[in-house]
């Protein structure tokens, strides 16, 4: 999504982003096609009823990497002497594009009434605007911001009555300013509190992970380890938390994102990125076919995000509308999980074939649209 040429990309980041895309595809196909299949009391967010599904890892990894990629891009541009004002313009344009794109995506892929569900695209667009500020402030400020985002999130959810917005098993809001703003800040799918902490954490961690030298890997691993330990500590301290602040029965959950989940995914992201950087990026023997495909997927992650939704959600709406006049008719009840999984795997093979073709000059994609609109 940052538009860098293949020659300057880091294999480890491309691989992680491709893994996030694969996980997201598997989870979304199973969740949307089979989440409530053959069972009462649905819908089930994140396909949680299937214990073998890798739920809850793709989104934090992706948002974390958005901050990492932005930091690497901004530092590279600054080292080439690019004007800071120009960097700000590009960043703000990208952020506004992603927010608008997120609204359009919600209307066209989900339903018009879901325009303000505050999904991941609007989060990353908001993150771009925040990262532009973070780029120009001392790192300590960003650390404090992350702390406030993570620490205040449970309080805001309690004040806003998070459960009321998720009574149906998905984010359900009224078309009022109050609900829309509350959803953006605290109760949506990916609200600012605490999800904005992930790209900001990626922005802060990037120099530790990719800065080079002998000491920075140790610093990155220490930071990641401390965050993981903090996550465990938070889970152990759960009995001490006031009941009013608890909006979920589980210690580790994505909806809402529990504090342990946020800390653990940030820490895990740092550790994973560091290990992969130390093992993969130093190799000079080029990319094998798998890593080439991963690189192509990573370069076109926005396009693939849209396509994977279109590939399984539009058929759902069309089939539901045609059969019963209700587009929602088959949501989460269309197929067994095994079938949904098979379709997801088939789609991923299609993605592997498609991704490198998207690199061809002149091929339209979401990324080419973003570059055309946002870069000078």
């Amino acid at each position: 999504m940052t538009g860098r040429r293949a020659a300057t990309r880091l294999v480890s980041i491309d691989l992680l982003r491709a893994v996030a895309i694969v996980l997201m595809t598997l989870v979304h196909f199973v969740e949307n096609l089979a989440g409530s299949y053959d069972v009462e009391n649905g819908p089930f967010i994140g396909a949680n009823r299937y214990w073998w599904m890798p739920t809850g890892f793709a989104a934090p990894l992706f948002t974390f990497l958005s901050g990492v990629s932005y930091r690497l891009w901004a530092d590279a541009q600054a080292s080439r002497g690019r004007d800071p004002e120009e960097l700000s313009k590009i960043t703000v344009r990208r952020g506004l594009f992603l927010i608008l794109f997120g609204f359009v995506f919600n209307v066209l892929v989900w339903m018009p009434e879901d325009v303000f569900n505050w999904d991941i695209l609007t989060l990353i667009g908001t993150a771009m605007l925040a990262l532009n500020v973070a780029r120009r402030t001392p790192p300590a400020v960003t650390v404090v911001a992350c702390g406030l985002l993570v620490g205040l999130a449970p309080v805001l959810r309690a004040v806003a009555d998070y459960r009321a917005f998720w009574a149906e098993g998905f984010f359900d809001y009224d078309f009022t300013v109050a609900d829309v703003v509350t959803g953006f800040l605290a109760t949506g799918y990916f609200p600012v509190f605490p999800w904005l902490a992930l790209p900001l954490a990626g922005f802060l961690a990037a120099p530790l992970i990719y800065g080079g030298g002998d000491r920075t890997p140790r610093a990155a691993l220490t930071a990641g380890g401390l965050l993981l330990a903090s996550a465990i500590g938070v889970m152990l301290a759960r009995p001490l938390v006031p009941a009013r602040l608890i909006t979920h029965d589980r210690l580790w959950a994505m909806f809402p994102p529990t504090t342990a989940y946020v800390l653990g995914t940030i820490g895990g992201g740092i550790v994973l990125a560091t290990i992969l950087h130390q093992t993969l990026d130093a190799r000079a023997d080029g990319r094998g076919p798998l890593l080439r495909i991963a690189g192509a997927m990573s370069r076109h992650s926005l396009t693939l995000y849209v396509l994977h939704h279109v590939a399984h959600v539009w058929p759902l709406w069309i089939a539901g509308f045609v059969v019963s006049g209700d587009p929602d008719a088959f949501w989460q009840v269309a197929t067994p999980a095994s079938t949904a999984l098979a379709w997801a795997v088939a789609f991923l093979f299609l993605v592997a074939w498609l991704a490198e073709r998207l690199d061809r000059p002149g091929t339209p994609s979401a990324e080419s649209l973003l570059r055309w609109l946002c870069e000078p």
Partner: protein
Amino acid sequence: MITSHQQLADAGTIPVSGLPPDTTVERMPLADGGVFEVALVAIPAVEAAEHDSVIAELVGRASSWVTAAAPGGDSPLVTPLYGTHVVWSPRRAAALGPADRLATMRAAIVDFTDREAELRDIERRIAAALEHVDGDAPLAFEFDEQSLPRRREIAGRFQDAISLRRRLAVLAPAVHRPAPQPPTLAGQLGERLRDRTRVVERLDHAVEQADLLERVYSGCGDRVAEFVSSRRHLTLEWVIILLLAAEVVLIMIDLLANRTP
């Protein structure tokens, strides 16, 4: 700076090609890490008619020996004085004279070479430091976030500049010390060598250059300190803004939640 006579080592009689067999060669370490050798050659007693030719031949051989220490370098200085001769280069010297004067000549040569080596080392370090001045000078005017990684490097150069200035301050009195009165062989020899190597002028130039370095890196240090201080204030201001924003968000969510039926 080493003192003249404390570092003499390996004293003894070492055969020196082309010079009389009783020539003594002594060694001493220099400020730049090199080694200085001084050969003490007693002029043999000869007939008056042969004296000049013998001296000339000895001086020629001594020059060859001295030159061999730095092939391709400058020609050694040859300084005749009161029936003695000194052939000098920064790495080797030969003192030729009556046996009873060699100790005095050695002391003067060692003393002078000690100071000259110190000055030479300072000049070399100043030349190396001056190469960075053009690149670092903008930081003496303005220091920004992008220059932060260079903070330690600039601090190191500031320390080096101060160290060079200190060494010059210690060296200057020794260089400018007037010759003893009434004149002695050692005093006259030291003055002659000092004049021929232009040590005084070189010292003055080195002082000017060291002053330049000190000014530039003092300016850099001031800008760094100002930047770090303002950055701390900026950080505190931003933290306050963030806390206020968090408070606003909390109040807003509370108000919105209370408004929602």
